[in-house]
């Protein structure tokens, strides 16, 4: 069936899936080193080049991550005790929520245990060459052992770290070291089959440091709960989720349909209509805000999902982007499907959309980000706190409450989390979108 072929163009080949983690085609060299790029180069120079590349990557990654790290430190540090003591900002007075893994109620214990188990399983699976869709490699005794003992080790040592940090004990760094060492040991068991030998060691240590640090900070610091409670983030995040979902789906669907018309159909004044369509891009929200708010008020839509979603159901930007994608679909495909008897809808949903999936995925991310981060519009059409979105809540926490600035930052990080998850979920699509057409297969 032709439709499946079209879809499979974008799917990984079976070999790639079996080989495990998607290999880095740009930087990593193929195993046997016999490609055009490496022929004629000594292996020494090749190693040196690789080291250089990775060093550059590490530097770049640090540049990107350092601000995030600082944000995290600021979230954890209540700002003023340090000023008074004449010390620079440093997260030593972190307020810890629980003193042991089993504190804090059944729900949080189950969630944090599951999250750690999932993270360890994912790392083990990745190292073993599996993927979430093909979890078979995980079912080996040593990897299962690594996951289970890893969770136990974290549970035991995280509680100790919280306890000793809360008491401002000098033993805290030793508990950290112990946690990392024990967790690394358990993970090494799972990685042990890898060769050369430095690989499992390095992997075990890196995984252990990352998992320990993330677990202790994410589940132990009280600031997350304080931010959540102070901003009453639960209902606000729910509201943001709802409107983001509706807006994204509506924008993607309307953009695809409109783009189809502009890319494949012939109708009078097409260019003119398209120009008008694009002209709406020139009017930023701020310009139309007052008039649109008045319209919403007259419709009686104040404090409703309709007011939050409806004005954003269609966008010229999405239409433009996806139209460009559609124009990349070879005319031969269009002609062939017409000969095969496909109508407009059949061609659109079975060929045009699958072939431009990277563009559509990128647009989905952009649309969702825009909807999630809206501030001005919801602030204008919502005056009932039950309908407030997460961004408005953030603003009310930030305010001028400077003594608790760290709580506001923590709340901001919580609100940013869904965006991060969205980027991770769509990263494959986005990267494919960026490299689509770079290599002729």
């Amino acid at each position, binding site marked *: 069936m032709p439709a499946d072929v079209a879809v499979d163009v974008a799917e990984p080949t079976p070999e790639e899936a079996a080989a495990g983690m998607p290999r880095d085609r740009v930087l990593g060299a193929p195993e046997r080193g016999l490609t055009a790029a490496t022929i004629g180069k000594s292996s020494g120079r090749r190693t040196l080049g690789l080291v250089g590349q990775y060093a550059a990557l590490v530097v770049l990654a640090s540049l990107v991550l350092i601000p995030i790290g600082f944000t995290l430190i600021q979230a954890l540090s209540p*700002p*003023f*005790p340090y*000023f*008074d*003591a*004449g010390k620079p900002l440093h997260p030593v007075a972190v307020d810890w929520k629980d003193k042991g893994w089993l504190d804090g109620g059944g729900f949080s214990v189950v969630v944090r245990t599951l999250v750690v188990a999932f993270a360890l399983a994912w790392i083990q699976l990745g190292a073993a060459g599996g993927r979430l869709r093909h979890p078979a490699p995980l079912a080996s005794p040593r990897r299962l052992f690594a996951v289970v003992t890893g969770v136990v080790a974290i549970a035991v040592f995280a509680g100790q770290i919280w306890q000793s940090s809360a008491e401002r004990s000098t033993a805290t760094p030793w508990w950290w070291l112990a946690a990392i060492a024990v967790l690394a040991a358990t993970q090494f068991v799972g990685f042990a089959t890898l060769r050369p030998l430095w690989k499992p060691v390095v992997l075990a240590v890196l995984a252990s440091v990352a998992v320990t640090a993330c677990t202790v900070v994410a589940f132990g610091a009280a600031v997350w709960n304080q931010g959540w409670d102070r901003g009453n983030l639960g209902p606000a995040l729910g509201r943001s989720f709802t409107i983001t979902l509706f807006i994204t789906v509506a924008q993607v669907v309307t953009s695809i349909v409109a783009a189809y018309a502009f890319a494949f159909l012939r109708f009078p004044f097409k260019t003119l209509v398209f120009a008008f369509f694009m002209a709406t891009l020139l009017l930023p929200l701020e310009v139309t805000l*007052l008039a649109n*708010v*008045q319209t919403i*008020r*007259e419709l009686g839509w*104040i404090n409703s999902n309709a007011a939050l979603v409806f004005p954003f159901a269609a966008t010229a930007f999405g239409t433009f982007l996806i139209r460009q994608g559609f124009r990349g679909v070879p005319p031969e495909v269009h002609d062939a499907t017409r000969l095969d008897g496909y109508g407009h809808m059949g061609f659109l949903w079975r060929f045009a959309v699958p072939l431009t999936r990277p563009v559509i995925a990128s647009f989905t991310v952009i649309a969702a980000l825009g909807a999630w981060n809206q501030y001005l519009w919801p*602030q*204008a059409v919502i*005056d*009932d*706190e039950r309908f*407030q979105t997460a961004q408005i809540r953030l*603003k*009310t926490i*930030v*305010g*001028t*409450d*400077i*003594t*608790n*600035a760290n709580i506001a930052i923590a709340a901001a990080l919580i609100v940013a989390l869904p965006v991060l998850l969205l980027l991770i979920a769509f990263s494959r699509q986005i990267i494919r979108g960026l490299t689509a057409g770079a290599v002729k297969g």
Partner: protein
Amino acid sequence: MRRTYVTPWRFGFTAAALAAALVAAACSEPPTTGSGNAVAIGPGGQLPDCPLDALDEATGPVEVSLWYGGLVGSTKATMEDIVARFNASQDQVRVTANDQGASYEEIYRKYQSASATPEQLPDLIYLEDTQLQAMIDGGQVLPAQACMEAAGYDLTNIESAARSTYTVGDVLYPGYMNVSTPVLYYNKAHWVKAGLDPNKPPQTLDEIYTQAKALKDAGVSEKPLSFRVSRWFFETWLTGIGENIVNNGDGRQAPATKATFATPEADDLVGWLKKMNDDGLLNAFANTEGSIDQYLALATQQSSMLIETSAASSTIADALGGNVTAAEAGIDFDASVLDKAQLVPGAAAMPGIEAPGKVFPTGGAFYILNTSEPAQQAGSWKFLEYMLRPEIGKIWHLNGGYLPIVKAVEDDPEVQAFWKDQLAGVLLKPAVDQLASADPDRPGPLIGPYVDEALAIENALDAVLFENQNVPESLARAQDEVTQSLERYAGG
């Protein structure tokens, strides 16, 4: 006699006659009983009816919606707390409070956009004092005084200075006010280090200059005075020496038609700021929404003193107090506290041009809107009446940091103890005394287009401090801008 009425551009027969009439009005009666503002209250000068009966006729609890804005942190928590207490205290009225934004600007914008569709307005709204004239002109306010009279509430329970600021043409418009005044916060540790007396902070601008110079010369702080460039302090200083910002008795006898602040006195005041700045004694920060840089300057010890709102006292106590106790930071400063703290916050009356503590009350106020149903109007008054109770006003003071406007609050033993035993209370006390001694005859300017006035004055101050422009020229330009804005406001 007030100075405004003898300023140069007031010559000419008509103007002189008008001024004479106004002076007569001003001198013959206290400002709370000045000439009536017929526009807002109706042709007979009568208060509108406050439909208190509607509450008894209503079946089931009356839903009252309250919009507030500009309350953050502890003040927001206090607002929510008081609403919850009120709802629990009776079952006739249910108040739902909705936060419309962290700044007064945001809630005012919200009000403006909703005012065209009155059925979408709340029943009760909390707005900054600066919006008073605009609210009256908008005609959507039910003066709380009408309800006070209908309910037999004695409005002389309210501090006279606070009352006079929110009274126009003999009518008190809001039903409750979160009053604050500007005060001086200073780091006593720096005073000790510079060899100054930590219990004698500056009282006048000249003393600020000499003490700031001493602090800088001793090397304890880089730029001793941290200052947010706000029109509020400018107005306070000028009002403190009897100058008016606008004509017609600062807009109190009749709607202002002209700005009158570009006087030699104002030139001297801004000249003082400029000199402080030129000599490296001023740490000036542009007045942006939610700015905290002026506090951080104290925290990082870049500056030694700060002029800010009294409502910030609990923030200052939390942020800078560290482990300093009220007794240690109190009047009898004990130098041994310096062993454990580098920051020992103190507060003092607002230094003035001539004398300290010359302030007028400012702050957000609660207005009943006449656009809602009679039962909602009556329910709104019930809530305001509840807030006017001394035990509730006390909560605003202790937890929210606003000054007591009901006199009985000050006599409460818990409040007395708060002023003595808690750092926030110690820091708040100068503002309380300042309000008690504030002159009801100097209630501050009343301006319709307040946003424009603030913008013009702050632009002029910014130009002088950050762009090194000429003082009289900048002020004259700002004055023209405000006058034009007043004309536009009157015409539209």
